[in-house]
Protein backbone atom coordinates (compact mmCIF):
# COMPACT_ATOMS: atom_id res chain seq x y z
CA UNK A 1 0.00 0.00 0.00
CA UNK A 2 1.28 3.44 -0.91
CA UNK A 3 1.92 5.63 2.08
CA UNK A 4 -0.87 8.19 2.47
CA UNK A 5 1.34 10.43 4.60
CA UNK A 6 4.72 12.10 4.78
CA UNK A 7 6.43 11.01 7.97
CA UNK A 8 8.80 14.00 7.98
CA UNK A 9 5.92 16.44 7.67
CA UNK A 10 3.94 14.71 10.41
CA UNK A 11 6.97 14.69 12.70
CA UNK A 12 7.45 18.40 12.14
CA UNK A 13 3.79 19.18 12.87
CA UNK A 14 4.02 17.11 16.05
CA UNK A 15 7.27 18.84 17.05
CA UNK A 16 9.02 15.45 17.14
CA UNK A 17 12.62 14.88 16.19
CA UNK A 18 12.85 11.29 14.92
CA UNK A 19 15.82 9.11 14.07
CA UNK A 20 15.87 7.18 10.80
CA UNK A 21 15.02 3.99 12.70
CA UNK A 22 12.07 5.65 14.43
CA UNK A 23 10.81 7.01 11.13
CA UNK A 24 10.87 3.53 9.62
CA UNK A 25 9.17 2.01 12.66
CA UNK A 26 6.43 4.66 12.93
CA UNK A 27 5.81 4.64 9.18
CA UNK A 28 5.20 0.93 9.30
CA UNK A 29 2.94 1.22 12.36
CA UNK A 30 0.97 4.10 10.86
CA UNK A 31 0.50 2.06 7.70
CA UNK A 32 -0.89 -0.79 9.75
CA UNK A 33 -3.36 1.55 11.46
CA UNK A 34 -4.46 3.07 8.17
CA UNK A 35 -4.77 -0.45 6.79
CA UNK A 36 -7.28 -1.28 9.51
CA UNK A 37 -9.36 1.73 8.57
CA UNK A 38 -9.27 0.71 4.94
CA UNK A 39 -10.50 -2.73 5.94
CA UNK A 40 -13.34 -1.11 7.88
CA UNK A 41 -14.25 1.00 4.89
CA UNK A 42 -14.51 -2.17 2.76
CA UNK A 43 -16.87 -3.91 5.18
CA UNK A 44 -20.41 -4.45 3.97
CA UNK A 45 -22.45 -2.58 6.55
CA UNK A 46 -26.08 -1.42 6.49
CA UNK A 47 -26.21 2.25 5.63
CA UNK A 48 -26.52 4.47 8.67
CA UNK A 49 -28.91 7.36 8.47
CA UNK A 50 -27.47 10.86 8.77
CA UNK A 51 -29.34 11.20 12.06
CA UNK A 52 -27.22 8.58 13.77
CA UNK A 53 -24.78 11.15 15.08
CA UNK A 54 -27.27 13.94 15.60
CA UNK A 55 -28.61 14.99 18.98
CA UNK A 56 -31.22 17.56 19.85
CA UNK A 57 -30.92 20.36 22.40
CA UNK A 58 -31.75 18.03 25.27
CA UNK A 59 -28.13 16.88 24.97
CA UNK A 60 -26.80 20.33 25.87
CA UNK A 61 -25.53 21.18 29.34
CA UNK A 62 -27.09 23.91 31.43
CA UNK A 63 -25.01 27.01 32.12
CA UNK A 64 -24.27 26.00 35.73
CA UNK A 65 -20.71 26.53 36.99
CA UNK A 66 -19.19 23.39 38.51
CA UNK A 67 -16.09 22.55 40.55
CA UNK A 68 -12.57 23.48 39.47
CA UNK A 69 -9.25 21.76 40.08
CA UNK A 70 -7.43 24.66 41.70
CA UNK A 71 -4.10 25.97 40.49
CA UNK A 72 -2.05 23.61 42.69
CA UNK A 73 -3.64 20.58 41.03
CA UNK A 74 -3.31 22.13 37.57
CA UNK A 75 0.37 22.98 37.91
CA UNK A 76 1.15 19.53 39.39
CA UNK A 77 0.23 18.08 35.98
CA UNK A 78 3.04 20.00 34.28
CA UNK A 79 6.80 19.41 34.46
CA UNK A 80 7.47 22.95 35.68
CA UNK A 81 5.50 25.81 37.17
CA UNK A 82 5.90 29.20 38.76
CA UNK A 83 3.49 31.35 40.76
CA UNK A 84 0.49 29.16 39.92
CA UNK A 85 1.29 29.20 36.22
CA UNK A 86 2.69 26.50 33.99
CA UNK A 87 6.22 27.27 32.92
CA UNK A 88 7.28 26.48 29.34
CA UNK A 89 10.27 27.36 27.16
CA UNK A 90 9.92 30.87 25.81
CA UNK A 91 7.53 31.04 22.86
CA UNK A 92 8.03 34.10 20.75
CA UNK A 93 5.24 35.88 18.97
CA UNK A 94 6.10 39.41 19.95
CA UNK A 95 7.86 41.99 17.85
CA UNK A 96 11.36 40.75 17.04
Amino acid at each position, binding site marked *: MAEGFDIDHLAKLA*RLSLTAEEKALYSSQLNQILGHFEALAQADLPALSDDAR*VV*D*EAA*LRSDEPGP*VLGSAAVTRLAPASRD*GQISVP*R*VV*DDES
Partner: protein
Amino acid sequence: MSTPPSDWEVVIGLEVHVQLHTRAKVFASSPWGFGQEPNEQVDPVVLGLPGTLPVVNREAVEKSILFGLVVGASVPEHCSWDRKNYFYPDNPKNYQLTQKDFPVVVGGQVEIELPGASRNVMGEHKFIRIHHAHLEEDVGKLSHAGSGSLVDYNRAGVPLLEIVTEPDLRSSAEAEAFLRSLVAMITQAGVADCDMEKGQLRCDCNVSIRRRGTEKLGTRTETKNLNSISSVRDTVIYETARQIRELEAGRSITQETRGWNAELVRGYVLRDKEDAHDYRYFPDPDIPTLKISRETVTRLSALVPENLYDRQRRYIANLGLPYTAASVLVNDRALAEWFELAVAAHPANPSGIANLVANDLLRDLAASATAPVSLESCLIKPAQLAGLVKLTDEGVISKQQAKEVFTEMFTSGRDAAAIVDAKGLRQNSDTGELEKIVQEVIADPAVAKSIAEYRAGNEKAINALKGPIMKRTQGKANPVLIDQLLRKFLG
Protein backbone atom coordinates in the same frame (compact mmCIF):
# COMPACT_ATOMS: atom_id res chain seq x y z
CA MET B 1 -5.00 60.61 7.38
CA SER B 2 -7.75 58.04 7.18
CA THR B 3 -8.28 57.64 3.47
CA PRO B 4 -5.82 56.37 0.88
CA PRO B 5 -4.96 58.40 -2.21
CA SER B 6 -7.84 58.27 -4.59
CA ASP B 7 -6.45 55.81 -7.17
CA TRP B 8 -6.05 53.05 -4.56
CA GLU B 9 -8.95 51.35 -2.87
CA VAL B 10 -8.53 49.46 0.38
CA VAL B 11 -10.51 46.28 0.97
CA ILE B 12 -10.98 45.12 4.56
CA GLY B 13 -12.48 42.03 6.10
CA LEU B 14 -12.67 41.46 9.84
CA GLU B 15 -12.78 38.41 12.07
CA VAL B 16 -14.23 39.52 15.38
CA HIS B 17 -13.88 37.24 18.40
CA VAL B 18 -16.42 37.92 21.12
CA GLN B 19 -16.53 36.19 24.51
CA LEU B 20 -20.19 35.26 25.05
CA HIS B 21 -22.03 36.22 28.21
CA THR B 22 -22.25 32.88 30.08
CA ARG B 23 -21.38 31.69 33.58
CA ALA B 24 -19.75 28.39 32.67
CA LYS B 25 -17.34 27.57 29.86
CA VAL B 26 -18.51 26.37 26.45
CA PHE B 27 -17.73 22.64 26.68
CA ALA B 28 -17.06 22.35 30.42
CA SER B 29 -18.74 23.44 33.64
CA SER B 30 -15.77 25.42 34.94
CA PRO B 31 -16.78 29.01 35.74
CA TRP B 32 -14.95 31.88 34.10
CA GLY B 33 -14.51 35.59 34.69
CA PHE B 34 -11.97 38.34 34.46
CA GLY B 35 -9.38 39.04 37.14
CA GLN B 36 -9.10 35.60 38.81
CA GLU B 37 -5.84 34.10 40.07
CA PRO B 38 -4.09 32.05 37.32
CA ASN B 39 -5.36 28.50 36.69
CA GLU B 40 -8.14 28.77 39.27
CA GLN B 41 -10.87 28.40 36.64
CA VAL B 42 -9.82 25.13 35.11
CA ASP B 43 -11.38 21.67 35.26
CA PRO B 44 -10.40 18.31 33.71
CA VAL B 45 -12.53 18.89 30.60
CA VAL B 46 -10.81 22.20 29.88
CA LEU B 47 -7.44 20.44 30.03
CA GLY B 48 -8.69 17.51 27.95
CA LEU B 49 -7.52 15.02 30.58
CA PRO B 50 -8.04 11.33 29.71
CA GLY B 51 -11.59 10.12 30.24
CA THR B 52 -13.22 13.52 30.01
CA LEU B 53 -15.85 14.45 27.45
CA PRO B 54 -16.94 17.90 26.28
CA VAL B 55 -20.65 18.75 26.49
CA VAL B 56 -21.88 21.93 24.79
CA ASN B 57 -23.27 24.71 26.99
CA ARG B 58 -26.88 25.51 25.98
CA GLU B 59 -26.52 29.18 26.88
CA ALA B 60 -23.49 29.57 24.59
CA VAL B 61 -25.44 28.02 21.69
CA GLU B 62 -28.49 30.20 22.36
CA LYS B 63 -26.41 33.39 22.63
CA SER B 64 -24.84 32.48 19.27
CA ILE B 65 -28.25 31.91 17.68
CA LEU B 66 -29.50 35.17 19.19
CA PHE B 67 -26.57 36.97 17.57
CA GLY B 68 -27.54 35.41 14.24
CA LEU B 69 -31.10 36.66 14.64
CA VAL B 70 -29.87 40.15 15.57
CA VAL B 71 -27.98 40.43 12.27
CA GLY B 72 -30.73 38.77 10.24
CA ALA B 73 -28.72 35.62 9.53
CA SER B 74 -30.16 32.21 8.83
CA VAL B 75 -29.85 29.69 11.62
CA PRO B 76 -29.05 26.31 10.07
CA GLU B 77 -30.94 23.14 11.04
CA HIS B 78 -27.68 21.58 12.19
CA CYS B 79 -24.29 22.69 13.38
CA SER B 80 -21.23 20.67 14.36
CA TRP B 81 -17.76 21.01 15.85
CA ASP B 82 -14.32 20.19 14.51
CA ARG B 83 -10.86 19.81 15.94
CA LYS B 84 -8.25 22.30 14.83
CA ASN B 85 -4.94 20.63 15.62
CA TYR B 86 -1.83 22.56 16.54
CA PHE B 87 0.89 22.43 19.16
CA TYR B 88 1.28 25.59 21.14
CA PRO B 89 1.29 26.06 24.90
CA ASP B 90 -1.87 28.23 24.89
CA ASN B 91 -3.77 25.11 23.93
CA PRO B 92 -3.91 22.40 26.62
CA LYS B 93 -5.45 19.65 24.44
CA ASN B 94 -3.27 20.23 21.35
CA TYR B 95 -6.48 20.98 19.49
CA GLN B 96 -9.04 23.73 19.65
CA LEU B 97 -12.72 22.86 19.36
CA THR B 98 -14.20 25.07 16.64
CA GLN B 99 -16.76 24.92 13.82
CA LYS B 100 -15.30 24.63 10.35
CA ASP B 101 -17.94 23.35 7.93
CA PHE B 102 -21.24 23.74 9.77
CA PRO B 103 -21.23 26.95 11.83
CA VAL B 104 -24.14 28.03 14.01
CA VAL B 105 -24.73 31.29 12.08
CA VAL B 106 -24.66 31.74 8.29
CA GLY B 107 -25.01 35.13 6.54
CA GLY B 108 -26.58 38.26 7.93
CA GLN B 109 -25.61 41.91 7.77
CA VAL B 110 -24.77 44.81 10.03
CA GLU B 111 -25.95 48.34 9.29
CA ILE B 112 -23.32 50.98 9.97
CA GLU B 113 -23.39 54.77 10.18
CA LEU B 114 -20.38 56.78 9.08
CA PRO B 115 -19.53 60.08 10.78
CA GLY B 116 -21.40 63.07 9.34
CA ALA B 117 -19.92 66.42 8.34
CA SER B 118 -20.50 67.59 11.92
CA ARG B 119 -21.93 66.18 15.12
CA ASN B 120 -25.39 67.45 14.17
CA VAL B 121 -25.41 65.83 10.75
CA MET B 122 -26.13 62.17 10.13
CA GLY B 123 -23.51 60.40 8.02
CA GLU B 124 -23.96 57.81 5.29
CA HIS B 125 -25.42 54.40 6.13
CA LYS B 126 -24.12 51.11 4.65
CA PHE B 127 -24.70 47.42 5.15
CA ILE B 128 -21.74 45.11 5.84
CA ARG B 129 -22.37 41.45 5.11
CA ILE B 130 -21.53 38.73 7.60
CA HIS B 131 -20.13 35.56 6.02
CA HIS B 132 -20.77 33.37 9.06
CA ALA B 133 -20.16 33.14 12.81
CA HIS B 134 -18.91 30.03 14.57
CA LEU B 135 -18.87 29.01 18.21
CA GLU B 136 -15.48 27.87 19.49
CA GLU B 137 -13.42 27.79 22.65
CA ASP B 138 -10.98 30.50 23.64
CA VAL B 139 -7.39 29.47 24.37
CA GLY B 140 -5.14 30.06 27.38
CA LYS B 141 -3.08 33.15 27.97
CA LEU B 142 0.71 33.29 27.65
CA SER B 143 2.93 35.81 29.33
CA HIS B 144 6.59 36.07 28.66
CA ALA B 145 9.01 36.23 31.54
CA GLY B 146 12.74 36.17 30.96
CA SER B 147 13.87 33.00 29.25
CA GLY B 148 10.52 31.27 29.64
CA SER B 149 6.82 31.74 29.13
CA LEU B 150 4.05 31.26 31.68
CA VAL B 151 0.68 29.73 30.90
CA ASP B 152 -2.67 30.54 32.51
CA TYR B 153 -5.56 28.33 31.34
CA ASN B 154 -8.36 30.39 32.93
CA ARG B 155 -9.31 31.72 29.50
CA ALA B 156 -9.11 28.30 27.84
CA GLY B 157 -12.60 27.04 27.07
CA VAL B 158 -14.37 30.41 27.40
CA PRO B 159 -17.16 30.54 24.79
CA LEU B 160 -15.95 32.55 21.84
CA LEU B 161 -18.11 33.55 18.89
CA GLU B 162 -15.99 34.32 15.85
CA ILE B 163 -17.85 36.66 13.51
CA VAL B 164 -16.41 36.75 10.00
CA THR B 165 -17.37 39.58 7.63
CA GLU B 166 -17.31 39.62 3.86
CA PRO B 167 -14.58 41.95 2.50
CA ASP B 168 -17.10 44.81 2.38
CA LEU B 169 -15.28 47.50 4.34
CA ARG B 170 -13.53 50.24 2.35
CA SER B 171 -11.83 52.53 4.87
CA SER B 172 -10.58 52.77 8.43
CA ALA B 173 -13.67 54.87 9.20
CA GLU B 174 -15.92 52.08 7.94
CA ALA B 175 -14.04 49.48 9.98
CA GLU B 176 -14.44 51.66 13.06
CA ALA B 177 -18.12 52.33 12.37
CA PHE B 178 -18.71 48.60 11.82
CA LEU B 179 -17.17 47.64 15.15
CA ARG B 180 -19.11 50.34 17.02
CA SER B 181 -22.34 49.20 15.43
CA LEU B 182 -21.57 45.51 16.04
CA VAL B 183 -20.71 46.13 19.69
CA ALA B 184 -23.92 48.13 20.20
CA MET B 185 -26.04 45.38 18.64
CA ILE B 186 -24.33 42.59 20.59
CA THR B 187 -24.48 44.34 23.95
CA GLN B 188 -28.05 45.58 23.43
CA ALA B 189 -29.17 41.99 22.80
CA GLY B 190 -27.29 40.74 25.88
CA VAL B 191 -25.20 38.35 23.75
CA ALA B 192 -21.92 39.59 25.22
CA ASP B 193 -20.48 42.51 27.16
CA CYS B 194 -17.68 43.27 24.67
CA ASP B 195 -15.53 44.87 27.37
CA MET B 196 -12.33 45.50 25.46
CA GLU B 197 -10.40 46.36 28.63
CA LYS B 198 -11.05 42.78 29.72
CA GLY B 199 -10.15 41.27 26.35
CA GLN B 200 -13.76 40.29 25.65
CA LEU B 201 -13.52 41.46 22.04
CA ARG B 202 -10.50 40.78 19.83
CA CYS B 203 -10.11 41.28 16.14
CA ASP B 204 -8.12 39.93 13.22
CA CYS B 205 -7.94 42.42 10.37
CA ASN B 206 -7.46 41.44 6.72
CA VAL B 207 -6.28 44.28 4.47
CA SER B 208 -5.53 44.43 0.77
CA ILE B 209 -5.45 47.23 -1.77
CA ARG B 210 -6.32 47.44 -5.46
CA ARG B 211 -6.50 50.11 -8.13
CA ARG B 212 -9.87 51.83 -7.90
CA GLY B 213 -12.24 50.46 -10.51
CA THR B 214 -10.59 47.03 -10.70
CA GLU B 215 -12.38 43.91 -9.54
CA LYS B 216 -9.57 41.55 -8.63
CA LEU B 217 -8.60 41.58 -4.96
CA GLY B 218 -4.98 42.31 -4.11
CA THR B 219 -2.82 40.09 -1.92
CA ARG B 220 -3.95 40.50 1.67
CA THR B 221 -2.19 40.54 4.99
CA GLU B 222 -3.79 39.51 8.25
CA THR B 223 -2.99 41.49 11.40
CA LYS B 224 -3.94 39.39 14.39
CA ASN B 225 -5.16 39.92 17.91
CA LEU B 226 -6.18 43.58 17.90
CA ASN B 227 -7.87 44.34 21.20
CA SER B 228 -9.41 47.75 20.64
CA ILE B 229 -11.37 49.60 17.99
CA SER B 230 -8.63 52.21 17.75
CA SER B 231 -6.04 49.49 17.06
CA VAL B 232 -8.16 48.21 14.17
CA ARG B 233 -8.50 51.73 12.78
CA ASP B 234 -4.76 52.39 13.14
CA THR B 235 -3.87 49.02 11.60
CA VAL B 236 -5.97 49.76 8.53
CA ILE B 237 -4.35 53.18 8.12
CA TYR B 238 -0.87 51.71 8.62
CA GLU B 239 -1.34 48.68 6.36
CA THR B 240 -2.96 50.73 3.60
CA ALA B 241 -0.07 53.20 3.56
CA ARG B 242 2.51 50.39 3.73
CA GLN B 243 0.98 48.40 0.90
CA ILE B 244 0.64 51.48 -1.32
CA ARG B 245 4.29 52.29 -0.63
CA GLU B 246 5.38 48.75 -1.51
CA LEU B 247 3.39 48.55 -4.74
CA GLU B 248 4.33 52.04 -5.89
CA ALA B 249 7.99 51.17 -5.33
CA GLY B 250 7.53 48.23 -7.70
CA ARG B 251 7.61 45.57 -4.99
CA SER B 252 4.85 43.07 -4.25
CA ILE B 253 2.78 42.30 -1.17
CA THR B 254 3.57 39.08 0.65
CA GLN B 255 0.61 37.22 2.09
CA GLU B 256 1.62 37.16 5.73
CA THR B 257 0.44 37.20 9.30
CA ARG B 258 1.27 40.36 11.18
CA GLY B 259 1.18 41.67 14.71
CA TRP B 260 0.40 45.16 15.95
CA ASN B 261 2.31 47.25 18.48
CA ALA B 262 -0.28 49.68 19.86
CA GLU B 263 2.27 51.74 21.80
CA LEU B 264 4.50 52.36 18.80
CA VAL B 265 1.47 52.46 16.44
CA ARG B 266 3.13 50.14 13.95
CA GLY B 267 2.74 46.65 12.57
CA TYR B 268 5.32 43.90 12.24
CA VAL B 269 5.63 40.53 10.57
CA LEU B 270 4.92 37.66 12.92
CA ARG B 271 7.63 35.06 12.89
CA ASP B 272 6.15 32.47 10.59
CA LYS B 273 5.19 29.37 12.50
CA GLU B 274 6.15 26.72 9.98
CA ASP B 275 3.18 24.86 8.57
CA ALA B 276 0.98 26.78 10.97
CA HIS B 277 -1.85 26.53 8.49
CA ASP B 278 -1.83 22.76 8.38
CA TYR B 279 -4.40 22.34 11.12
CA ARG B 280 -5.59 18.88 10.00
CA TYR B 281 -9.22 19.66 10.83
CA PHE B 282 -11.53 16.75 11.39
CA PRO B 283 -15.00 16.39 12.95
CA ASP B 284 -14.78 16.09 16.71
CA PRO B 285 -15.81 12.53 17.57
CA ASP B 286 -16.87 13.49 21.11
CA ILE B 287 -19.50 16.10 20.20
CA PRO B 288 -22.44 14.91 18.10
CA THR B 289 -23.96 17.14 15.45
CA LEU B 290 -26.53 19.42 17.06
CA LYS B 291 -30.02 19.79 15.65
CA ILE B 292 -31.38 23.27 16.31
CA SER B 293 -35.15 23.23 16.68
CA ARG B 294 -37.28 25.88 15.03
CA GLU B 295 -39.09 26.33 18.36
CA THR B 296 -35.82 27.52 19.89
CA VAL B 297 -35.25 29.93 17.00
CA THR B 298 -38.79 31.31 17.41
CA ARG B 299 -38.37 31.66 21.17
CA LEU B 300 -35.05 33.51 20.76
CA SER B 301 -36.48 35.75 18.03
CA ALA B 302 -38.65 37.35 20.68
CA LEU B 303 -35.49 38.49 22.50
CA VAL B 304 -34.12 40.46 19.54
CA PRO B 305 -34.28 44.15 20.44
CA GLU B 306 -35.22 46.86 17.96
CA ASN B 307 -32.25 47.58 15.70
CA LEU B 308 -30.56 50.78 16.83
CA TYR B 309 -30.83 52.47 13.44
CA ASP B 310 -34.49 51.46 13.08
CA ARG B 311 -34.96 53.07 16.47
CA GLN B 312 -33.05 56.16 15.35
CA ARG B 313 -35.19 56.49 12.21
CA ARG B 314 -38.35 56.11 14.33
CA TYR B 315 -37.23 58.78 16.80
CA ILE B 316 -36.49 61.24 14.01
CA ALA B 317 -39.52 60.50 11.79
CA ASN B 318 -42.23 59.72 14.37
CA LEU B 319 -41.13 61.63 17.45
CA GLY B 320 -39.55 64.59 15.65
CA LEU B 321 -36.25 64.33 17.51
CA PRO B 322 -33.19 66.10 16.16
CA TYR B 323 -30.50 63.66 14.91
CA THR B 324 -28.08 64.70 17.65
CA ALA B 325 -30.40 63.64 20.48
CA ALA B 326 -31.68 60.53 18.67
CA SER B 327 -28.16 59.24 17.98
CA VAL B 328 -27.16 59.62 21.62
CA LEU B 329 -30.24 57.80 22.92
CA VAL B 330 -30.17 54.80 20.57
CA ASN B 331 -26.60 53.83 21.39
CA ASP B 332 -27.71 52.73 24.84
CA ARG B 333 -30.74 50.44 24.93
CA ALA B 334 -31.47 51.07 28.60
CA LEU B 335 -31.32 54.82 28.06
CA ALA B 336 -33.57 54.61 25.00
CA GLU B 337 -36.13 52.53 26.90
CA TRP B 338 -35.97 54.96 29.82
CA PHE B 339 -36.63 57.81 27.39
CA GLU B 340 -39.58 55.95 25.88
CA LEU B 341 -41.16 55.45 29.31
CA ALA B 342 -40.91 59.19 29.89
CA VAL B 343 -42.45 59.92 26.49
CA ALA B 344 -45.30 57.53 27.30
CA ALA B 345 -46.03 59.63 30.40
CA HIS B 346 -46.00 62.92 28.47
CA PRO B 347 -46.36 62.24 24.72
CA ALA B 348 -46.80 65.92 23.80
CA ASN B 349 -43.10 66.87 23.82
CA PRO B 350 -40.61 64.06 23.02
CA SER B 351 -37.93 66.58 22.01
CA GLY B 352 -38.13 68.34 25.36
CA ILE B 353 -37.74 65.01 27.14
CA ALA B 354 -34.92 63.89 24.82
CA ASN B 355 -33.08 67.13 25.47
CA LEU B 356 -33.12 66.61 29.24
CA VAL B 357 -32.21 62.91 28.94
CA ALA B 358 -29.41 63.30 26.39
CA ASN B 359 -27.88 66.35 28.07
CA ASP B 360 -28.77 66.88 31.73
CA LEU B 361 -29.42 63.29 32.77
CA LEU B 362 -26.35 61.84 31.04
CA ARG B 363 -24.17 64.64 32.38
CA ASP B 364 -25.33 64.16 35.98
CA LEU B 365 -25.06 60.35 35.72
CA ALA B 366 -21.46 60.65 34.59
CA ALA B 367 -20.45 63.43 36.95
CA SER B 368 -21.86 62.25 40.26
CA ALA B 369 -19.55 63.15 43.11
CA THR B 370 -18.81 59.58 44.18
CA ALA B 371 -18.80 57.46 41.04
CA PRO B 372 -20.81 57.37 37.86
CA VAL B 373 -24.39 56.40 38.73
CA SER B 374 -26.12 53.75 36.65
CA LEU B 375 -29.49 54.39 35.11
CA GLU B 376 -31.09 51.68 37.30
CA SER B 377 -29.89 53.22 40.57
CA CYS B 378 -30.69 56.75 39.40
CA LEU B 379 -33.20 58.41 41.79
CA ILE B 380 -35.12 60.24 39.11
CA LYS B 381 -37.68 58.05 37.32
CA PRO B 382 -38.98 58.44 33.73
CA ALA B 383 -42.47 59.60 34.76
CA GLN B 384 -40.93 62.23 37.05
CA LEU B 385 -38.84 63.64 34.22
CA ALA B 386 -41.99 63.71 32.08
CA GLY B 387 -43.68 65.66 34.89
CA LEU B 388 -40.93 68.25 34.80
CA VAL B 389 -41.21 68.73 31.04
CA LYS B 390 -45.00 69.02 31.40
CA LEU B 391 -44.65 71.81 33.98
CA THR B 392 -42.34 73.66 31.60
CA ASP B 393 -44.64 73.13 28.63
CA GLU B 394 -47.59 74.53 30.63
CA GLY B 395 -45.58 77.63 31.48
CA VAL B 396 -45.65 76.90 35.21
CA ILE B 397 -41.84 77.23 35.29
CA SER B 398 -39.37 78.57 32.77
CA LYS B 399 -36.84 76.41 30.89
CA GLN B 400 -34.11 77.96 32.98
CA GLN B 401 -35.92 77.01 36.18
CA ALA B 402 -36.45 73.50 34.79
CA LYS B 403 -32.68 72.96 34.77
CA GLU B 404 -32.51 73.98 38.41
CA VAL B 405 -35.43 71.70 39.32
CA PHE B 406 -33.82 68.84 37.40
CA THR B 407 -30.63 69.09 39.45
CA GLU B 408 -32.69 68.96 42.63
CA MET B 409 -34.71 65.98 41.36
CA PHE B 410 -31.54 64.11 40.46
CA THR B 411 -30.16 64.35 43.97
CA SER B 412 -33.42 63.92 45.92
CA GLY B 413 -35.67 61.83 43.66
CA ARG B 414 -38.60 64.12 44.51
CA ASP B 415 -41.33 65.05 42.03
CA ALA B 416 -40.88 68.22 40.02
CA ALA B 417 -44.16 69.73 41.26
CA ALA B 418 -43.16 69.25 44.92
CA ILE B 419 -39.82 70.98 44.33
CA VAL B 420 -41.45 73.82 42.40
CA ASP B 421 -43.90 74.41 45.28
CA ALA B 422 -41.29 74.07 48.01
CA LYS B 423 -39.02 76.59 46.30
CA GLY B 424 -41.89 78.87 45.42
CA LEU B 425 -40.94 78.74 41.75
CA ARG B 426 -44.47 78.53 40.40
CA GLN B 427 -44.89 81.29 37.85
CA ASN B 428 -47.72 83.69 38.38
CA SER B 429 -50.27 83.12 35.66
CA ASP B 430 -53.08 84.97 37.37
CA THR B 431 -54.08 87.31 34.54
CA GLY B 432 -56.10 89.68 36.72
CA GLU B 433 -53.27 90.29 39.17
CA LEU B 434 -50.65 90.58 36.42
CA GLU B 435 -52.79 93.02 34.42
CA LYS B 436 -52.82 95.33 37.42
CA ILE B 437 -49.04 95.17 37.83
CA VAL B 438 -48.43 95.68 34.10
CA GLN B 439 -50.63 98.75 34.05
CA GLU B 440 -48.88 100.19 37.09
CA VAL B 441 -45.46 99.70 35.49
CA ILE B 442 -46.57 101.24 32.19
CA ALA B 443 -47.80 104.30 34.13
CA ASP B 444 -44.37 104.80 35.71
CA PRO B 445 -42.67 107.85 34.07
CA ALA B 446 -39.31 106.03 34.35
CA VAL B 447 -40.25 103.76 31.44
CA ALA B 448 -41.89 106.41 29.24
CA LYS B 449 -38.88 106.57 26.95
CA SER B 450 -38.88 102.82 26.31
CA ILE B 451 -42.61 102.91 25.57
CA ALA B 452 -42.11 105.68 23.07
CA GLU B 453 -39.32 103.74 21.37
CA TYR B 454 -41.44 100.60 21.22
CA ARG B 455 -44.31 102.51 19.70
CA ALA B 456 -41.88 104.01 17.19
CA GLY B 457 -41.12 100.48 15.99
CA ASN B 458 -38.22 99.31 18.17
CA GLU B 459 -39.41 95.80 19.14
CA LYS B 460 -36.63 95.26 21.63
CA ALA B 461 -37.57 98.28 23.70
CA ILE B 462 -40.41 96.24 25.18
CA ASN B 463 -37.88 94.16 27.12
CA ALA B 464 -37.00 97.17 29.28
CA LEU B 465 -40.50 96.96 30.75
CA LYS B 466 -40.28 93.29 31.67
CA GLY B 467 -37.58 93.75 34.29
CA PRO B 468 -39.65 95.96 36.59
CA ILE B 469 -42.62 93.59 36.26
CA MET B 470 -40.50 90.58 37.18
CA LYS B 471 -39.10 92.52 40.10
CA ARG B 472 -42.54 93.31 41.47
CA THR B 473 -43.60 89.67 41.19
CA GLN B 474 -40.34 88.31 42.67
CA GLY B 475 -39.59 86.68 39.32
CA LYS B 476 -42.66 84.51 39.38
CA ALA B 477 -44.58 86.07 36.54
CA ASN B 478 -45.12 83.89 33.50
CA PRO B 479 -42.90 85.58 30.88
CA VAL B 480 -45.17 84.56 28.01
CA LEU B 481 -48.15 86.12 29.73
CA ILE B 482 -46.25 89.36 30.52
CA ASP B 483 -45.30 89.70 26.87
CA GLN B 484 -48.90 89.22 25.77
CA LEU B 485 -50.23 91.72 28.29
CA LEU B 486 -47.63 94.39 27.45
CA ARG B 487 -48.43 94.16 23.75
CA LYS B 488 -52.13 94.34 24.53
CA PHE B 489 -51.82 97.51 26.62
CA LEU B 490 -49.22 99.24 24.45
CA GLY B 491 -50.72 98.13 21.12
